[in-house]
């Protein structure tokens, strides 16, 4: 499912998402405000843990994907 939010960085996008769907933020972030272990977040297909993390800047056309990390095998 896809939703539109307005934000200038990734954490802002998550806060905006939480405003539409209360409780979402605490499922994505732990008590330290870090991404939970079993959540992968991609900014335009790039794993944000490989880039600038939750502080990454986002613009109007950017696409953020939130995908459960759990999968295995090759």
């Amino acid at each position, binding site marked *: 499912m896809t939703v539109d939010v307005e934000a200038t960085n990734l954490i802002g996008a998550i806060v905006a998402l939480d405003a539409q769907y209360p409780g979402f933020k605490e499922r994505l972030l732990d008590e330290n405000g870090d991404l939970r272990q079993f959540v992968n977040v991609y900014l335009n297909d790039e794993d944000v843990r490989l880039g600038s993390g939750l502080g990454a800047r986002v613009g109007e056309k950017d696409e953020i994907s939130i995908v459960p990390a759990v999968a295995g*095998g090759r």
Partner: protein
Amino acid sequence: MPKLLGLRCRECGAEYELQATHVCEMCFGPLDAVYDTAAMKKIVSRQRIEQGPKSMWRYRDLLPVEDTVNVVTLGEGYTPLVKADRLGAELGLRNLYLKNDSMNPTNSFKDRVVSVAISWARAHGFETIACASTGNLANAVAAYAARAGLECFVFIPIDLEPAKVAAISVFDPNLVAVRGNYDDVNRLCSQLIESTPWAFCNINIRPFYAEGSKTLTFETAEQLGWKLPDEIIIPIASGCQFVRHRQAVRELMEYGLVRGDRVPSFTGAQALGCAPVYNAFHSDNPDRVLPVKPDTIAKSIAIGNPSDGVYVNRIARETGGVVEAVSEEEIVDAIRLLARTEGIFTETAGGVTIGVLAKLARAGRWKGEETVVAYVTGHGLKTADVLASANGHSSRRVEIEPTMKSFREKVSI
């Protein structure tokens, strides 16, 4: 009698009914199959197992498939456990064993998990089986889907080697070549489960799929005379397999199949070119596994973002094991070492396992009498190209004319 009660989140303990789902809605943690252990304790016995088929289905009582289900099998499992005296002599180990899982129907350990996954999926009304893969998993899924007569969708990275594509294509699955790497393919499939009625072996039916791994350790214990080894060396990709082997030891003890309460040390093997679990194990915070971009010839275990990595580190620490990694050169050397000493040709992932075994042995990890088992999980013909590029010809090769004279001149006997 139904032996599966449902699914439970490994992190927060939330419980779910039996269904094709793998992620906790509350915390995104992984879901595991929950069994009626009290009922199973009354049934499970060495005798029942020993009377079963000479395949991994002799452990059917311990797998997430009900008694009434007609399983999809090609005779997977019950692979040889060989005592490796010549390799052991090189490494100073007098009780070294190799579990040769390259002897499975499609030549890798994946046949175990896929046989369980497809049996479960067919019994629960799924008509299409799918997976994201670069080789071994796709091979197994395509073969078992053909065997079961189910539709099959296999998602592969577009640059997959022609030989691997051929080995998958022969089973006639729908082959979707994705412009991206394996992690991209896996992510696409994770998103696809929302909108397709398909059973993705390694994603939405993963709680059942993963259970098939346990049989490798069940067999090892049985083949050692219902004893557990002192240490097991296991290759790590997502870490899913490693976690199930720890669970298998728990079950062997719980159901009284093995005597004693000494848990083997669980040691993990990675390629340095894709070593996120190894990196975390040797860092200040082993509970934080940071993703990497894989760059290794051991492609069948090159997962840059391993979902079970944290559990691997916990299990290794708790059982006195370690996580070790080897270079590309050490991988190829280990493939040759295993072939030269034991007559077993393994793929690059097996080279990682044997490479780690050799590295630890040479560093003095063992005194010599310990029973050590290494899991050799795939056949060398799957990755034969790495030998050709590393060294085109054997150093013991000579070319001669078809004459006795030429033979005498060129060949020393």
